[in-house]
């Protein structure tokens, strides 16, 4: 009964979305207030209905109702409660339901808090949101109904893929989706602005927080996925340039560009058409990302079985959304007039440079990801494009951008001089050279990229600190003046500083993990000792045990440095009872300079175990750096300007007056 309520709620949501997608649009076109006003209750109702559907599916999972096909396929009575709940979105149908629930949640946020948006803009934004939702409802109800029943009812389920029974991965999809869907807001605002033919600072003040929030979620989501791959796949790697990873990384690149260009629209009233285009591209890549994972067309290290029958619908949806919005842009885009002018050497110029590099990088990643599909489609044979390609293209593109990142914040708006900006970076340049020499002295035989990477990280880190020091006039006036300036620095500025510092730390971490990783694969018998990067790993044997729904083979390693015990490591190999699928649980000990990482494999006939031991330098810096980046984003989001100023009546009123 309850699954039918969920199914019915979903059908009702489809109908409500249809009303929301049409009437407010027509109303806004004709200036009919009553029709426009429908958008608000419709958005709230739609969210209520999807929430009911989601609740029904969750109920089916928690109570293990195996008469629902989806629950049967992805759950089991013996599964811990956390994974029963995360199982709701750990599959195709459920994850679409989560996607559309987040979409309608954001829609109702606009309906509730957008009371001081111009009514026409609000009606159109909600209309566009409903159109996106409409596509998803149709897709779910026609091809991927989460409430499909099963008869006869099986006694137990076939369990969630054991690799997904992990806390990191339980929260990875919701985070990622909050990011993807967050960019739908920027998209809806962009389409609404195109229809209205007007983009102003008030518009940017609405779009920016949404893009920023989406960026924070997406950053956190990607990192959770990467962290999971690091400790769960047992290869000691954290990024594989795998199609599924690229699918989430492309919207991140475009979204980062959007974040920076929307600042320019807000502050300088220029780059409007470009920002609109970026909003469209970012959301299109988010859609592509959602579906690329699902279509089953790409071979990936993370591949999961999918149903190609859905491919046609997905392709159609993508063509309508991307093609339609780009056509609208081509038609209406030229009407957007930018008033602000600026010189190439200026803050705007630097932000535009960031945008160009980010979009070029996104395009290169897109090409590498889709190339195997294109080549296969024209009969050119089956190929795979792997990490070496992406590294060879992506890293050289990023180098000039990171160099410019330290300079950009020092340039003034509109028109700037390169000389004084560069003269303030002498400290950064000095630290960079010292860091590079130090790295070269320690790791003489290491790869060249290691020296470059650490040098860039040092340059960026010191460059950002120099900018901060200049902003608070450190050493130029009294200390108390500097401190009071520090206190008065708006949170948005702190957010930028922290996010950029976080990136510098992340770059150092990535460089370390990429350049100086030490790996050792061997068969070990109890008592054997292997030396990895100056640490001695002593294997003390393995024993069996049982977990809640799996059996365990647990290895024991003593890690010594100069005879002193550093840590004990207990890597596990688990075999899940229902699917008999094994998983690897790496044991990791994080130190300031790197991770000690151990994986244990099966026992062979001679009583030896295959083991993989790693020293992964600076990996902890990577995670810490990303945390700082996300914290910077959240801090910027909490800026007064967004709370008080975002839906500023005065700003909107002025904009209306200006356009009148």
């Amino acid at each position, binding site marked *: 009964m309850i699954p039918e309520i969920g199914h019915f709620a979903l059908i009702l949501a489809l109908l409500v979305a249809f009303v929301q997608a049409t009437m407010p649009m027509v109303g806004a076109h004709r200036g009919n207030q009553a029709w426009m006003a429908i958008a608000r209750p419709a958005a709230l109702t739609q969210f209520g209905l999807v929430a009911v559907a989601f609740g029904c599916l969750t109920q089916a999972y928690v109570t293990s109702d195996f008469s629902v096909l989806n629950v049967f*396929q*992805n759950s089991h009575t013996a599964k811990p409660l956390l994974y029963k709940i995360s199982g709701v979105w*750990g*599959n*195709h149908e459920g*994850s679409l339901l989560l996607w559309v629930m987040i979409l309608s949640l954001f829609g109702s946020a606009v309906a509730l808090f957008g009371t001081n948006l111009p009514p026409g803009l609000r009606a159109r934004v909600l209309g566009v949101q409903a159109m996106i939702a409409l596509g998803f409802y149709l897709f779910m109800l026609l091809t991927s109904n989460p409430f499909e029943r099963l008869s006869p009812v099986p006694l137990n389920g*076939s369990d*969630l*893929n054991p*690799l997904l029974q992990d806390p990191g991965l339980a929260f990875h*999809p919701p985070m990622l989706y909050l990011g993807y869907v967050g960019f739908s807001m920027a998209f809806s605002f962009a389409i609404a602005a195109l229809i209205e033919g007007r983009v102003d600072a008030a518009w940017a003040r609405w779009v920016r927080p949404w893009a920023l929030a989406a960026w924070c979620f997406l950053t956190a989501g990607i990192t959770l*996925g990467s962290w999971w791959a690091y400790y769960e796949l*047992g290869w000691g790697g954290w990024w594989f340039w795998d199609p599924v990873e690229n699918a989430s990384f492309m919207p991140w690149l475009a979204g980062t560009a959007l974040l920076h260009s929307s600042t320019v629209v807000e502050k300088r009233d220029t780059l409007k058409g470009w920002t609109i285009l970026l909003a469209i591209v970012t959301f299109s890549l988010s859609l592509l990302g959602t579906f690329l*994972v*699902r279509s089953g067309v790409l*071979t990936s*290290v*993370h*591949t*999961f*079985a999918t*149903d*190609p*029958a859905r491919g046609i619908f997905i392709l159609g949806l993508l063509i309508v959304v991307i093609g339609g919005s780009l056509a609208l842009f081509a038609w209406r885009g030229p009407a957007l007039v930018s008033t602000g*002018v*600026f*010189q*190439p050497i200026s803050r705007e110029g630097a932000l*535009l*440079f960031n945008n*160009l*590099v980010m979009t*070029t990088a996104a*395009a*290169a990643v897109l090409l*590498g990801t889709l*190339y195997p599909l294109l080549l296969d489609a024209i009969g050119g044979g*089956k*190929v*795979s*494009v*792997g990490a*070496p*390609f992406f590294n*060879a*293209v992506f890293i050289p*593109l990023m180098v000039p951008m990171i160099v410019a990142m330290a300079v950009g914040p020092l340039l003034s708006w509109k028109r700037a001089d390169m000389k004084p900006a560069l003269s303030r970076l002498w400290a950064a340049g000095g630290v960079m050279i010292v860091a590079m020499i130090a790295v070269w002295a320690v790791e003489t035989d290491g790869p060249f990229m290691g020296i470059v990477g650490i040098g860039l990280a040092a340059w960026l880190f010191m460059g950002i600190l120099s900018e901060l020091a200049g902003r608070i006039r450190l050493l130029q006036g009294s200390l108390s003046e500097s401190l009071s300036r520090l206190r008065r620095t708006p949170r948005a500025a702190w957010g930028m500083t922290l996010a950029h510092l976080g990136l510098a730390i992340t770059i150092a971490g990535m460089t370390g993990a990429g350049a100086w990783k030490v790996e050792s694969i*061997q068969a070990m018998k109890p008592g054997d000792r292997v030396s990895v990067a100056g640490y001695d790993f002593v294997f003390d044997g393995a024993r069996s045990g049982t977990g809640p729904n799996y059996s365990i083979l647990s290895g024991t390693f003593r890690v010594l440095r100069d005879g002193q015990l550093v840590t004990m490591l207990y890597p596990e*190999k688990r075999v899940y009872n229902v*699917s*008999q*699928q094994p998983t*690897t649980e790496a044991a990791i000990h994080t130190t300031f300079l790197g991770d000690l990482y151990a*994986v244990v*494999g099966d026992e*062979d006939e001679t009583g*030896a175990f*295959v*083991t*993989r031991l790693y020293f992964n330098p600076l990996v902890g810096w990577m995670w810490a750096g990303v945390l700082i980046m996300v914290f910077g984003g959240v801090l910027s989001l909490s800026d007064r300007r967004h709370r008080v100023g975002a839906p500023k009546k005065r700003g909107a009123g002025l904009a209306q007056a200006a356009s009148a």
Partner: protein
Amino acid sequence: MKRKHKRLTFVVIALGLLGVAAGLVLSAFEENIVFFYSPTDIAENNVAEGRRIRLGGLVEEGSVKKAGGAVVNFRVTDLTTVIAVTYKGLLPDLFSEGQGVVAEGALQGGVFRADEVLAKHDETYMPPEVAEALKKSGKWKGPGESQGENRGKDNNK
């Protein structure tokens, strides 16, 4: 600088970046694209030794031999042709005899030396390339014909 000139400056910078990117992409494509072969393709096409390729097929039943020191030897078949593979390292969790597998590496003296064996996340999953290789050799008997009935799990990463 006039507005027109400024726009021109940006266009030149953008084109320059695109040019650099295109150059990088082309040179990287040249060196880093890895072609996919089935055992039969390798037998028929005289794949050059040392060229990096991907090999896909089924792990032949009874062929997996641990050679000590973490080295594993096994044979990959598309049920027409068989090729010997050697790999050093931990095999992915779902590697087993009779299952589909994708290995990356190069031929060396008639033996495929793999340095990466692709992990799958689902025991019911068959990499599309492997399915195709089996279909080509006419030995396909998998569940693929009735995709709608596929009870394989649809799991997101």
